[in-house]
């Protein structure tokens, strides 16, 4: 009884808003991650350009910067009088920093390596022979991509999506920096949780962390249930 009441009292309207923003952010980020990550990963998996290792390293780079520092540089880039900010406004956007769009951009950049890596690995392990077979049946590149590559890379896509989603839910440094913590717009759950810990509201923090964990567990578990590529290849009977 007590805990329910406590929980109730802890989930303020602001928290609810933060939950909504977080889910929206993670969902949109994941979708964009896939849309952006797929072509990059495909290119990386197939290019014979000598600079490929360099490009791969660049994709992985956002990881080596502390999130707040990355956020700081993004903030500089998003400033209204910076080239990026100018372009954004030219394209009809409002101010970029402290907007939901900024969060999305920041999250995508920060999580890109997690999306590209599993996708690229999947693509590289895809038997090219099947694409040749598809080509002989008249499938052009686009057709091959949707009819062969995507379904056979489900493993990588699920990996990319789940890592990207989870990472965005937990992300905090970058978002904190470029989001401005505006309730209902850029205040996300991770920041709310961080605030609890900083301000010593431990029991509230425990509840929130617990809820987050249980929710994520369910969601990720659900995603991973679709991850059954293995069953398509019964042991020893595959002929690629």
């Amino acid at each position, binding site marked *: 009884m007590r805990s329910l009441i406590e929980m109730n009292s802890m989930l303020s309207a602001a928290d609810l808003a933060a939950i909504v923003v977080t889910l929206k952010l993670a969902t949109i980020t994941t979708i964009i991650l896939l849309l952006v990550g797929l072509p990059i990963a495909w290119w990386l998996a197939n290019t014979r350009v000598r600079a490929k290792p360099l490009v791969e390293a660049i994709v992985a780079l956002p990881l080596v910067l502390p999130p707040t520092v990355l956020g700081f540089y993004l903030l500089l880039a998003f400033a209204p009088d910076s080239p990026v900010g100018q372009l954004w406004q030219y394209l009809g956007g409002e101010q970029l920093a402290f907007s939901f769009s900024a969060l999305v951009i920041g999250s995508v950049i920060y999580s890109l390596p997690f999306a590209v890596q599993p996708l690229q690995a999947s693509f590289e392990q895809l038997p090219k022979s099947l694409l040749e077979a598809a080509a002989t049946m008249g499938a052009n590149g686009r057709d091959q991509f949707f009819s062969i590559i995507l379904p056979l890379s489900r493993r990588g896509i699920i990996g990319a999506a789940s890592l990207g989603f989870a990472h965005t839910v937990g992300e905090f440094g970058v978002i904190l920096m470029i989001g*401005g913590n505006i309730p209902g717009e850029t205040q996300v759950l991770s*920041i709310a949780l961080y605030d609890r*810990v900083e301000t*010593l509201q431990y029991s509230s923090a425990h509840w929130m962390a617990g809820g987050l964990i249980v929710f994520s567990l369910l969601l990720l578990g659900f995603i991973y249930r679709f991850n059954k590529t293995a069953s398509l290849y019964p042991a020893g009977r595959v002929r690629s």
Partner: protein
Amino acid sequence: NADTATIATAANFKPTLQRLAAVFEQQTPHQLTLVGASTGTLFNQIRQGAPFDLLLAADSERPARLEQLGFAIAGSRFTYAEGRLALIGYPAGRDLNPASLRAELTTGRGKLAIANPNTAPYGLAARQALEALALWPLAQGRLVRANNIAQAFQYVDSGNASLGLVAYAQVIHSPRAHWLLPARQYQPIRQQAILLQFGHRNQAAIDFMHFLTSPPAKDIIRHHGYAVAD
């Protein structure tokens, strides 16, 4: 009897502390190690047995809690500096006063950056000041809340926010224009120091605590933009 002490400090005071430590190390045989983080983080770490000798917090509440909980030496708590609030703007040269603040909030379109009132003492002070100026309700849609006072400054400095309530310490030595808010508009930001259980026999920590109250140290602190009682 040279000793080494680890001083945990609120991030906003770290530059000042570095200066103080340099002077202190010249004057005494002691060595100081400085660890900066948010006061909340330091508090949590101290509760879990962090090897810190002395805490220079950004507020008075958390040192008091530590004292209460027995992680710090009772009676060693004192205010080593009082934070002051300043209004800055972007671009750097613009006029800054209550009227321009009001004008920006009513007719302008820019953001007003403050530290998070829930977690940062400067944020709380900023809120109090805005309330005193009767601008708080007006500011609601325009506020961006930084995690700490350093970020609030960066928001303005990078041009993403047009106004910001920051620590006077951050701007006192910069050519950028600012308006120092009158101290009566917000509760004093009392930054308190306390000797921690871990350092209760550390001579360097004890000496440094005394040093902080010495006139040369107070001069340095003042020079960095804090108010200090005589």
